[in-house]
């Protein structure tokens, strides 16, 4: 089954903590269950997204890395 991405956030080039800040901001306008794809280059983002997900309850449903770019797919709680 292909995941249906509702929105993509390009956070490449942003340094900590802006990828998370922009993600939290983007999630505000989404509805529960919708998927947000985030692209980031901040090396801290893997641990940061895991911690943010754990703390806020928004689930990381996919995670991958292509070169220096990290990709996360998050499901809004």
């Amino acid at each position, binding site marked *: 089954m292909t995941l249906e991405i509702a929105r993509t956030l390009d956070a490449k080039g942003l340094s*900590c903590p802006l990828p*998370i800040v*922009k993600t939290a*901001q983007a999630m505000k306008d989404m509805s529960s269950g919708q998927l947000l794809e985030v692209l980031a280059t901040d090396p801290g983002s893997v641990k940061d997204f895991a911690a943010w997900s754990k*703390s806020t309850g928004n689930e990381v449903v996919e995670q991958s890395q292509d070169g220096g770019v990290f990709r996360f797919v998050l499901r809004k709680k």
Partner: protein
Amino acid sequence: MEQPLNLVLFSGTDDKLQAAAVLTAGAAALGKPVNVFLQYWALDAFRKDRIDRDHGLAPEAGDEGRAAVDGLRAAGQASWAETLRQAKDLGEVDIQACSLSMDLLRLEESDLDDLVDGVEGVTAFYLNAGEGQVVFI
């Protein structure tokens, strides 16, 4: 209700203000309320006619630190003021000026940037801090 993070900002150099802005934005992204209390040189950096200028770095930065900070900025890192703006946009972030420092620097509330929500004394700061951690930067 979740206990707030309480940051007391004393230093007015760009590196320490940047560190404080990062802590603030991170907490805001987690839905944690943040109270910021501005004293001395940190308060001076929030004057609306000075907020965008170069506030220097802590002495330990040295030339190498200066180059590293300039490099990040050239790569597009948001300024501390911009990071704080985004944090305020996202979550519950209240920035208050210390009334004693206002007197010390002979400032009026109208001299401060819009990021600052008001002026309060240390008692009000502690009351709002509740049982949350207090961090001094």
